[in-house]
Every structure is written in structure tokens, then in C-alpha cells.
């Protein structure tokens, strides 16, 4: 892949020099890292080791990769994993049609060996994300998303790439990385990953953020929201997370909710407003019932209590 002209002014040749550097940088591109997040990102750029990011859905695992690519000014190459993903879709594939055409056009007068050498060259290779990341001229950020969705065999295939940054193609030989990509693997922890894979990675566990941290995230994404509403919103979200739900609300959902409240022009969250907008943060019918019952009542009670207190 040829580098785009815009990338020629890349900053990737002066990598971050300290942990606070990378924390500031990530903040500047709109991602508020926790302390361990910044530290592990720093180690990843320094040591050139892949990072395995685990945590519940919607805590910003994928977003971390995107922000890193923005901050390092590197292209993001993304491989979305799913069950049945194989190397033809992840690594490379031979371009059969082009090979056929080549054979046909040269058919008569070339010797077989000449043709054979010819059709197994890089020209006939269709690079898939992993190959793209390895072969790129400029260093990239490689995101292997939801690695836990694939089979164990696929994990095993990744090992060569992750430890040595190279790919072996039987017909061509070894292709080694021209540049070291920053690799992030994300997992929702639906399956235990193999020890071999884990051993090659740094480990980062992202959890739901603490109250203050989440508050600043919400404020970053919905700056117009008033402080009191934002704080109340985050407090409610944290309360909802404590309930036993099928799908607890994630950070993405708190941001959505904040934006929705902005649109509605809300200046306080009371029981009625909560009931109406609840569907933004809770996505299961049974969860809706639970939340309405537990939080709705509490909000109502609170409104009464603070009301009487003010009087």
C-alpha cells in the first residue's frame, strides 16, 4: 500500500517519551485514558509488543485503538474477527482470476516453469488486513477486534505474526514486517484465550470507569450539558450498573444519553424523564422492567426528599 501524501508529515518517528506524554496526547484526540491505559499504551509503543485489551462491551476498547492511531498519526488497519474467519480473509489470498488470465494470455509460447514463477509473485497476492499491516511502508496501528469470536486455530495462526511480525507464504517464503505496527487485540472475554497468545501480549483490563472519570468523559463528548445534569446522569448510570442486568449500560450509552438529554433541553433528570429516555441506556425488555422498578422508584423518592428539604 502506498502511503498517502498526507501521511508524509507523520509524527511516528518521534514516539512518546513518557507516560504522561501519551496520556496528554490521547486526551488531545478525545480519549480520556485511565492510568493503566496510558501506561500500557506507552509500553506497547516502546517494547513493540501487542496489547490484549479485555473488558465488558462498550468501555472503549476499539476506541482506544482508533485514538492511538490518531495520536500517533498512523493508519488504522482493522481486522474484525468472527466465527469461521480463516487466513484467506485475514492474511492473504491468491488472485486466481488474475492468475488464470495471465496463464491464458501467455499460454502457447512460454515454458511452464516460467509461468509458474510468474503467477506466484506479489503481483497476484491480494493482501488482507494482517498482510497490509505487515507490508505497509509507514508504521500502522493494527486492531484485531474481538479475537475471542474466532476459533483456537486462528489464534494459533496469529502467533507467528505477533511474536516475530512476519508471515510465511508457502509459495513465496517469508514476508517480514518493514515497520513495527502497534498491535491491539480486543476481547469481550466470552472465551478463554490460549496461554500461547496471552504470553505474547501485554495485558490491559478495561473496566467501567469510576464516577469522576466517567463524568469527565461525558463532559468531553457533550460539553454543553450542564454540570449538575451530567453528574446526576453519571450517578444514575453507575447505579444502574450495580443492578443485575443482562446488558449493563456502557460508556457509549452514557454518551448517547447525554446527547439525547441535550437535544431534549433537559435541565434536570426526574422520574418521568428517566422513564421516557430509559430505553437509550437499557436494551433488554426484562432489564427495562428491572431498571424502571428499582431506579424509577428511587428517583421518585429522591425528588420528594430533596423537594421537602428545599421547602
Amino acid at each position, binding site marked *: 500500500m502506498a502511503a498517502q501524501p498526507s501521511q508524509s508529515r507523520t509524527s511516528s518517528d518521534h514516539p512518546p517519551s513518557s507516560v504522561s506524554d501519551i496520556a496528554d496526547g490521547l486526551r488531545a484526540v478525545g480519549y480520556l485514558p485511565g492510568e493503566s491505559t496510558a501506561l500500557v499504551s506507552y*509500553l506497547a509503543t516502546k517494547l513493540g509488543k501487542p496489547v490484549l485489551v479485555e473488558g465488558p462491551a462498550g468501555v472503549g476498547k476499539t476506541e482506544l485503538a482508533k485514538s492511538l492511531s490518531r495520536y500517533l498519526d498512523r493508519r488504522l488497519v482493522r481486522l474484525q474477527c468472527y466465527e469461521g474467519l480463516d487466513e484467506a480473509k485475514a492474511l492473504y489470498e491468491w488472485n486466481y482470476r488474475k492468475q488464470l488470465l495471465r496463464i491464458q494470455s501467455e499460454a502457447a509460447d512460454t515454458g511452464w516453469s516460467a509461468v509458474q514463477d510468474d503467477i506466484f509473485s506479489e503481483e497476484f497476492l491480494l493482501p488482507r488486513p494482517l498482510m497490509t499491516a505487515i507490508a505497509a511502508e509507514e508504521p500502522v496501528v493494527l486492531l484485531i477486534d474481538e479475537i475471542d469470536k474466532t476459533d483456537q486455530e486462528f489464534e494459533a495462526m496469529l502467533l507467528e505474526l505477533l511474536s516475530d511480525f512476519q508471515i510465511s507464504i508457502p509459495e513465496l517464503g517469508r514476508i517480514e514486517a518493514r515497520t513495527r505496527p502497534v498491535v491491539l487485540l480486543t476481547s469481550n472475554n*466470552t472465551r478463554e484465550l490460549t496461554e500461547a497468545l496471552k504470553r505474547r501480549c501485554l495485558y490491559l483490563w478495561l473496566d467501567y470507569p469510576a464516577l469522576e472519570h466517567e463524568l469527565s468523559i461525558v463532559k468531553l463528548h457533550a460539553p454543553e450539558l450542564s454540570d449538575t445534569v451530567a453528574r446526576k446522569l453519571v450517578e444514575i448510570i453507575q447505579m444502574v450498573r450495580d443492578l443485575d442486568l443482562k446488558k449493563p449500560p456502557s460508556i457509549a450509552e452514557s454518551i448517547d444519553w447525554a446527547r439525547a438529554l441535550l437535544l431534549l433541553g433537559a435541565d434536570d433528570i426526574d422520574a418521568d424523564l428517566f422513564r421516557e429516555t430509559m430505553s437509550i441506556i437499557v436494551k433488554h425488555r426484562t432489564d427495562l422492567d428491572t431498571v424502571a422498578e428499582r431506579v424509577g422508584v428511587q428517583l421518585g423518592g429522591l425528588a420528594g426528599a430533596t423537594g421537602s428539604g428545599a421547602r
Partner: protein
Amino acid sequence: MPPAPAPAEGKPPGFPARLLELAEDLRAEGVAVGTSELLDAFDALGEVGWGHRLEVKESLAATLAKSSEDRRIFDLVFERFFFRAPEAEALDREVSEQDSALDAGGAELDLAQLRERIAQAIREGDDAALRDLARLAIAAFGRQGEGSGVIGVDVQRIRRALELRSADGRAREPRSVSRGDAVELPREALRRFEAHLRRELERDAIERAKRLPPSRPLNELDRALPSGPLQDLAAVHRVVAQLKRRLATQGHSTRGRRRHQQVDVRRTMRASLQTGGVPVVLKYRPRRPRRPEIYVLCDVSTSVTSASVFFLSVLHALHDNFRKMRSFVFIERISEVTEIFARERSFKAVSEAIGRDAGVADISGYTDYGRVWTEFIAQVEDDLHPRATVIVLGDARTNGRDPRADVFAQVAEKAGRTFWLNPEPRLYWNYGDSVIAAYERHCRAFECWTTGQLEEFVKALTRYDP
């Protein structure tokens, strides 16, 4: 926070040895730390500064602990390790904090002032001050002469004496106003203060005894036992979700040619009529996912009271994941509760409903396995088939009644696979009235009372083919 002890203490040549000791400790707690992880840890430490305790800890965590469970253990071990290391050193050199100026000051402070200062330190997030205040509190409290000697009890007594209360204990009201004179603090901050108290109390105990207490391995209970059903339900759910994947992919898991789709000859021929008999378009057989069919029998008698919350949460999680599933609870007789799970979503409601009207309110309250098997087979005989899986959750304690292993054998024979999850440690099996051996001949029995063991069971499922 006390200054990062080990780096300050050990000169660089001494530190690798320390790190190896830490790794040994971690291994003893079951975290798999390999040589390559250790090398990574050294690499990582080369990149971060020594001065910052948190950075050192996080880099070690990122390289040594590779799952959330490991991470939790790591945190505990790390604290324990770096607490003990400097203490041992201090004992060697006979350094004592006992008669520092701080403690003298503690004698003059009264509790109200102390409370005020603690609240302030928490508000400012000043960890070093918190630690000093913890010492003061212990000194002030010790003057009243109420130390019980048990650290956990003392921590709570001191906290109560200071009237420090968690702000979000009751309702999480936004910016709660303190009522009365009790100081309300964020739960997180209070927890931190308690940790300081605990640590300082331990330090005192060490100084008094002039030796380190034996290093205590982390209790299994510290780790993963789902004691509070609500908070640990999530963990059980996660494991059961894995179980589902394992069961669903079993048999038709991609092996050899089955990995590819099979051509449906009939439909291909039909389609080829359009192109004059030439099969241009291939038609494939649809892949039919295997639907696991599960029968779960769960003991809810008094002998398994402590485990039955865990079992019920397993049942609950199973119901979330499987469509074709029937569950039964039993004590003396059996009762089907599939409907209750289908109707109720919340775990609490389910357990209440089962307690109330599941019809297991038996006369004696003692398990009668023989009767249970007979009734079970009468109820489901026609539905059991070789693709079904039967899982029994129970302790196999028959209270001296006939185990009727022959009937159980019939069940096991009709079902494809039969598993037994026993909440007792293997050590107690077949002691007293436990007759698990009689049943183990017909099924696979697992020890299962933590989510970790549940995971082991799930792993074993894949390895085991009928």
C-alpha cells in the same frame, strides 16, 4: 501511600531477585508466570521510572497477569509482598515507628478533630496524610484500650468510633448532604482509609511480636466463591455462556471435510435444469446447528444450603442461554421449575418463587435420591434421547436411604451424557452418607463450588465425548 519500598531499598542488583520472589509468590497462588513474562517485566520496568509506585505496579501487572482473575490475585499478592518485604527489613535493623512524634500527637487529639482531618484528607485525596491519620486513629483508639486483637474487627470498631459512614450506603443521592454529625464519605475513599488502618494495625502487630506472621496463602474464599449471588451472578453467567458455546459447537465442530459445506445433490440437479443439465450453480445443504438439550437437576435441601445459591445462579444463567432446557429442583421429591425461570427474570424473584411454590416443601426436608430418580425417569422417560445432556447438582448425601443407583444408571443410559457437579471438596466424597461413588460409575463427577471450578467443568466438556 508509603513510598515505594522495594526500589528504594534494594539497589538494582538486588531487585531482580526480589522480582523473582514475587513471581514465585504469584505462582504459588496459581498465576502462570513464565520466563518470557518475567523477561517482559524487566523490559517494561526499563521503560518506566522507578519513582512512581503506580507505574511500576501497572507495568508488572500488564506483563505478569494475563486475565482479570489473575489481575485480582496480582493486586493482592503485590500488596502483601511489598508490605512484607520492608517489614522484614525493618525488623532486621530494629527500626520502629512506635515512638515517633506522630503517635505522641495522637494522644492529644480528640475524635472529633481527627474525624474532621480524615474527611479533609479524603477530600483532598492526600494518601500520605491518610496513612498518618490512620496511625493517629489507632493511637487514639488504643488509648481507650479496646483493641480486640483481631485486625478485621478492630478496623470496623475504629471506623465506627470515628463515625465515618459511607455516603452511598443507602440511596445514591447526588451530592448527599450529611445528616447529623456523622461524616459521610464516598465508599471508595472510605475503603482506602480502611486499607490504611488494616496495614498499620498489621505493622503494629509485627512490631509487638518482633516477627512476621507466617505468610498466609490467599484463601480460596478471597478469590472467586460467589457468596453474594447478585454481585457474582455476572461471573457465573460468563462461564455459562462459554458452556453454551462448547455444547453448541460440539459434534459439528469443524473437523476435516465437515468444515466445508456439503453439496445438496438433489437441489443442484434441479437447478441445473435451467442450464440444460449442466450444474453451474451448486446448491449446498444448510448447516444445522446442533441444539443441545439439557436437563438439570438441582438439590435444594439443607445440606447444600451454602451451595444452593451458587447452584441456583448456575441454573439461572443456564436458562438465559439455552432454549431447550428443563430444570428440576428436588429435596425428597422432584419438581419441575422450568416455567418459573421462563416467567421470572430477576434472580431474587426466581429464588423466592422456588422457595415458595415449587412444591418442594417436603415433609422431612431430607434428600431422597432413590425417589428422585424414579420420579425423574417417570416424568421425562419419553423425552430423553442420546443427544440430551443431564446435569445433576447435588452432594449425593442420601441420609441413609437407598441410593437406587440402578435407576440412575437407566437415566444415564438413556441420555447421551450425564454429569454430576458436587459442591463438596473431593476429600469429603464417600464419607458418611455420601454415595457419590455409586453414581460416579454412570456419570462424570466434578467438584464444583467456585466459578473457577465451573470453568474447569466447561473445559472438560469439550474434551469428553460420549
